[in-house]
């Protein structure tokens, strides 16, 4: 983390924050600590509560119950315009009747900054987002990416200790999005401000964040680094939301040291005990699975038979979708150097039981995944 971070960024504490609209709970007891200067991403499908959380922090939405501290001070009941928090919106929200320069100067004018200093700070903020030459243009003369960079400059020009971004790249095309992701990362490093970033795009979350909070149905499922979420998902929902995964369901039997799962007549096992879950599932990452032709010597302890249903060339490797005996689909990442397979080929999938994650089956994950 940036050494300046401790001085510039504000910590955020959400303590069992709830927000109800009638009987619908948009937020259901969300607790989250965001460290000063941290880049925290709120990730989840639409309607999961991530944007509501952002709006609560920004002051656009009241909380129904719970505590919210920014920089150690409670901000419950403080109106948005007194919170001194920068916000970047998906729809840019630039003032169409003002030039780029006046847009960026707006928060400084409100704070009574003298014209000389105002000019210097506007120029610095526009330079930071590489829009220094556009101060005299109107927003309608700019492309979407340029408008969003101006909006970013406007949100950081008054040095807020906290910057909130609500799917800021959602309306832009992929190439531009990837470039702006790196720009945002650079700006975060340079400023040391706490960033809270909302997205439904797990790849974007992995690229940007120090830590990610995964939202589902108004609750946080898990908070951790991208690697933690990928390698050690706490719930099936997280495992499926972050990265590709294969989920094995079947009849489970535990003998104290390992758990066996019978999937359509074939039994696989993992050297781990059940923690009282009645119906566990096994979650496997695509690179942990190996493909063999039936009868070949297999590495790993477990085998499942299946048929190649889809073969996708990815440049750096291949991705196979394999239909298993119980009609579920396994996803395998396979190096180009390995043997290649065609559609309809009968294959066996092998994996080391130690690589399988045993998770409780929250069938809700199926309905909320998009």
């Amino acid at each position, binding site marked *: 983390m940036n050494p300046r971070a401790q001085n510039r960024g504000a910590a955020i504490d959400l303590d069992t924050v709830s927000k109800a609209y009638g009987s619908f709970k948009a937020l259901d007891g969300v607790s989250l600590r965001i460290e000063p200067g941290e880049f925290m991403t709120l990730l989840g499908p639409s309607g999961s509560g991530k944007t509501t959380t952002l709006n609560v922090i920004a002051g*656009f939405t009241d909380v129904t119950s719970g505590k919210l501290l920014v920089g150690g001070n409670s901000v419950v009941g403080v109106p948005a*315009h007194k919170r001194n*928090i920068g916000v970047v*919106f998906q729809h840019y929200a630039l003032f169409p*009747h003002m030039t780029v320069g006046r847009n960026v100067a707006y*928060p400084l004018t409100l704070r009574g900054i003298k014209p000389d200093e105002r000019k210097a700070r506007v120029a610095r903020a526009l330079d930071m987002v590489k829009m220094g030459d556009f101060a005299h243009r*109107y927003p309608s*003369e700019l492309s979407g990416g340029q408008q969003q960079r101006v909006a970013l400059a406007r*949100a950081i020009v*008054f040095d807020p200790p906290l910057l909130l971004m609500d799917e800021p790249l959602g309306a832009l095309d992929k190439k531009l999005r990837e470039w702006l992701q790196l720009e945002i990362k650079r700006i975060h490093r340079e400023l040391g401000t706490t960033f809270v970033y909302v997205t439904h795009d797990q790849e974007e979350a992995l690229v940007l964040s120090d830590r990610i909070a995964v939202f589902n149905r108004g609750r946080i499922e898990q908070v951790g680094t991208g690697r933690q979420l990928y390698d050690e998902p706490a719930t099936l929902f997280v495992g499926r939301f972050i990265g590709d995964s294969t989920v094995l369901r079947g009849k489970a039997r535990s003998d104290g040291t390992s758990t066996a799962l019978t999937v359509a007549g074939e039994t696989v096992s993992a050297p781990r005990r059940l923690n009282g879950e009645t119906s566990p599932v096994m979650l496997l990452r695509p690179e942990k699975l190996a493909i063999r032709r039936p009868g070949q010597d297999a590495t790993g302890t477990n085998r499942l038979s299946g048929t190649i249903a889809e073969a996708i060339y990815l440049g750096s490797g291949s991705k196979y979708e394999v239909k298993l005996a119980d009609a579920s689909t396994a996803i395998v990442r396979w190096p180009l150097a390995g043997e290649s397979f065609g559609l309809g080929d009968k294959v066996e999938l092998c994996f080391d039981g130690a690589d399988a994650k045993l998770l409780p089956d929250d069938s809700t994950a199926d309905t909320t995944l998009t």
Partner: protein
Amino acid sequence: MEMKPLTRVILGLVCLLVAIWLVAPTLVVVPMSFNENKSLAFPPQGFSWQWYQNFATNPDWSSSFLNSLKVASLVAVLATVLGTLAAFGLDRMKARPANLLRMLMLTPMVVPGVVLAIGIYAVYLDAQLVGTLTGFVLAHTILALPFVLIAVSANLEVFDRRLETAAASLGAGALTTFRTVTLPLILPGILSGLLFAFATSFDEIVVSLFITNPYLKTLPVQIFSSITRDADPTVAAVGTILLFATTLLIGGGMLLLGRERKGRL
């Protein structure tokens, strides 16, 4: 699609006919105002400025003109303030009661003017508002309010309220947000509402005929009584002046708006 020459000629002729039909009655007034004789005959005979002179010097005409200016200005301000506030309130209300209230406020546009006039006259007799400035301003404001409401509402409908949220996040309180973001963006609607309100009051005749008295006449009332009493070409002179004044006003407004829009694009 490319048009055949014949089609083009026919289309042009039809357009010209419609244009003449629309404008001719108005333009007839102009030559009549320079008539030498005291008659409203068309085509006029001779040439003279005397009716313009009469308009400027005859107290009947000049005072009614000033009355109309006074009433219309007050109505424009009052109706614009009230209409803008109403438009805001309705915009931020729940849809169903808002639509009901909106219909209620728009009724002066659909209720026949005579009916409205009778009602207002009956009330004014008791309240002793007949022939008073207050009476005229109140009555005309009822008629002008819907125009402001429509103009401002149309602007609010396309106004992006998320800009207000953005302004709040940048540190602007509700009043500052209104002054610096909302007002500038709906100003075209407010200004056109103001213009409509002024025009509505300035040429209102039906209600005015009922609530006028010899001490307070507006210009349309004066025109009407003058033309029913004698064929005074001063009417034509007044008409010509009004024609040029409104052309200048609207044309200037359109030029200004056009320039602003060009600056933004």
